[in-house]
């Protein structure tokens, strides 16, 4: 992993006040996001909602990869599972919308429990490859089961309740769920559970040596990560209104990995920023060039060579250099 830059390497377990004293910056930022729909045209609301979905997905992956140290190469499996569960509930049952909010993550969580149970026995790349193989099995199944999942045609349109069918409704739901989920994940990272997870990432053998049931802990983290990816999948259904097997494919997982690299894996919020950058880049650059993948590829190479800690990681390092007091544990 990349060298940590601040956040979890310092004062975990210590309730120090923020360096800027109080919550005002956050409240300000929250207010901006809350009132953006008043001034932004529909398309930008849609785009923002898409960013929120991607941000949650990226942070969910970073939970298992950046904090858990497990080379999860198939996060899209759980994203897609959540999305498909939501789509199937909404199109095939008469259940109200609020059922899908738990149904999506639950489906993804169960899938994560089953696949994770096999995977946590394996190490590093073997672990990664097994997640990939099992993920592609799920992908193949979703793409072939025409009677149930609609096969490769996917499911569209997905009926949504009135208040969610506008870009504004999607924006608010995605915003609220994303913020709440990030808050929960952040608390998890800073909890004893999260600290232990990071200890396992640094040294699984030593962790077992101080009495930690490594595999059980990793499996729990795997499931938590899958749950939140599934929740992101539900949000995708709300924002896009359709699902198809490309949500589950390994190329989607690769996209999420790119978000992590862009933003920085060693920070909590980096992957979310990476998600925002990637979504915006793809939609803005895609308008101007047909060779968007070429541009993205070059960005990746340059970034990995010169800014492996990601954009947020880099900013944090700069900020920390200016405020050395931040580094010291109180």
């Amino acid at each position, binding site marked *: 992993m990349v060298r940590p830059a*601040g*956040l979890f390497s*310092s004062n975990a377990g210590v309730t*120090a*006040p*923020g*360096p*800027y004293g109080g*919550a005002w*910056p*956050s409240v300000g*930022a929250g207010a*901006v*996001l809350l009132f953006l729909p008043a001034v932004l*045209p*529909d*398309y*930008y609301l*849609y*785009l*923002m909602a*898409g960013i929120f979905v991607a*941000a949650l997905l990226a942070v969910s992956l970073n939970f298992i990869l950046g904090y858990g140290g497990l080379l999860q190469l198939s996060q899209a499996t759980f994203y897609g599972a959540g999305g498909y569960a939501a789509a199937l509930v909404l199109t095939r049952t008469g259940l109200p919308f609020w059922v899908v909010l738990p149904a999506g993550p639950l489906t993804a969580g169960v899938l994560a429990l089953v696949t994770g149970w096999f995977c946590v026995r394996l190490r590093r790349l073997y672990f990664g490859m097994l997640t990939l193989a099992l993920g592609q099995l799920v992908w193949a199944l979703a*793409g*072939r089961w*025409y009677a149930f999942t609609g*096969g*490769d*045609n*996917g499911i*569209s*349109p997905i009926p949504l309740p009135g208040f969610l069918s506008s870009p504004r409704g999607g924006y608010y739901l995605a915003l609220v769920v994303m913020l709440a989920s990030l808050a929960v994940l*952040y608390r998890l990272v*800073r909890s004893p559970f999260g600290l232990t997870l990071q200890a396992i990432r640094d040294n699984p053998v030593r962790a077992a040596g101080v009495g930690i049931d490594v595999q059980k802990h990793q499996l729990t983290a795997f499931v938590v990560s899958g749950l939140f990816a599934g929740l992101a999948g539900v949000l995708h259904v709300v924002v*896009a*209104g*359709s699902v*198809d*097997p*490309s949500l589950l494919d390994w190329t989607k997982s690769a996209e999420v990995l790119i978000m992590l690299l862009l933003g920085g894996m060693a920070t*909590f*919020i980096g992957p*979310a*920023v990476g998600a*925002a*950058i990637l979504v*915006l880049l793809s*939609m803005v650059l*895609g*308008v101007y060039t*047909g*060779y*968007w*993948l070429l541009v993205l590829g070059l960005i990746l190479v340059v970034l990995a060579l010169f800014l492996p800690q990601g*954009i*947020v990681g880099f900013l*944090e390092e700069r*900020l*920390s250099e200016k405020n050395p007091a*931040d580094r010291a544990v109180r």
Partner: protein
Amino acid sequence: MSGKRHFTILAGLVSLALVAALVAGCGRTPAAGTGKVLKVGIIDAYSGPASSYAKDALDGFKLGVNEVAANGGPKIDFVTRDDQFNAAKDLSWAKELVMQEHVDVVAGLMNSAGALAVASYADQQKVPFITWESMSAQITGSHGGKYVFAMPPNTTMIGNADAKEMAGLPYTRYWLAGDDYDYGHSVVNSFWAALQKDKPGVQKLGTSWWPVGETNYTPYLNVIRAAKPDVLFAGTGGADMVSFLKAVQASGLNKQMAVLDHTATDPSTLKALGADAPVGVYGTSDYLSYYPATNANKDFVAAFKKAYGHGPGFPALYGYLTARFLGAAVQKAGGVNKTKLAEALSGMTIDSPVGPVTIRAGDHQLETPMFFGRTAVQAGRTTLVMKNPVEIPAAQIMPSLASVLASRKK
């Protein structure tokens, strides 16, 4: 360092990026809806294995746009978006085109899943949507609507056409195979349903499904060969057609049984294969640049060759027809009002390189003929051609309107 600070960083970066996007977006003038200029947003797979079709269709569309303008018709503007054959991307681009670019019409779309999602979205937003490549029968079927139009013959029509011709041949024992993908399954299923109706007593010996992008068909063909059917009916398309026909040729399967595949006689496939193409393979084509040898077709081919240096494939025909239909629709509707455009397109007939073609009023599926024949060597050409094509009129292959409308009731 606190989490709050991270949140601030996130909000700051997102806002910055958003401002950048807004600035980028403002550079583009929303010209649409104002004058007589029709703005078309095109989404297609301009990268990846399917890009060959996408480019061909776009070339045809451009030719049509120029022709419409040259004949005193309305001016048609267009923008293109690359979906990398990804259905989720299709829908994003459709929303961008409708909400941001304010296009009057959305067109293109080869990916079936994407076409279906975009069809539903366009219909809901009351923006005309014309697919020029996707062959899913669901587009004008379960996902059809007032604003949804399909140019190419769909999988039901392909199955019907193939069944119609095969019923007249003395074969009874069939092996069914295809891409493990909606296109393959739909073509095979509709073919088999139609054939059982046209020729009771046909026998199905087995089925094989191979992945899209399969690189080695030998294991499949070996199993099929051992079952000794009279006919192998294959629903394979796109770039895989080249690999499939190579495997047929290499294992001599075409000498042991009749092989039939919808795009086997498609010129773009046969051109790639050159002398390596199997002889005597049955196929249907929706468009051949050399048949019918009418003046309309010859003129179209000549104009296309002049513009791009090579002949048109079937996607080019549908891109071209899309432009021609749109030009006529703007004239008929007297402007670019989206609802009036959709109403004008419904039931419209124009002359085309393959004769007069009509957008069926009931379901907005284009009524277009198909051509059936076998691959053969022709003196003086380096590539195989379809020998003595038989034209199957549209009326014989269109699905019944009743069945289409029934699929829309859910």
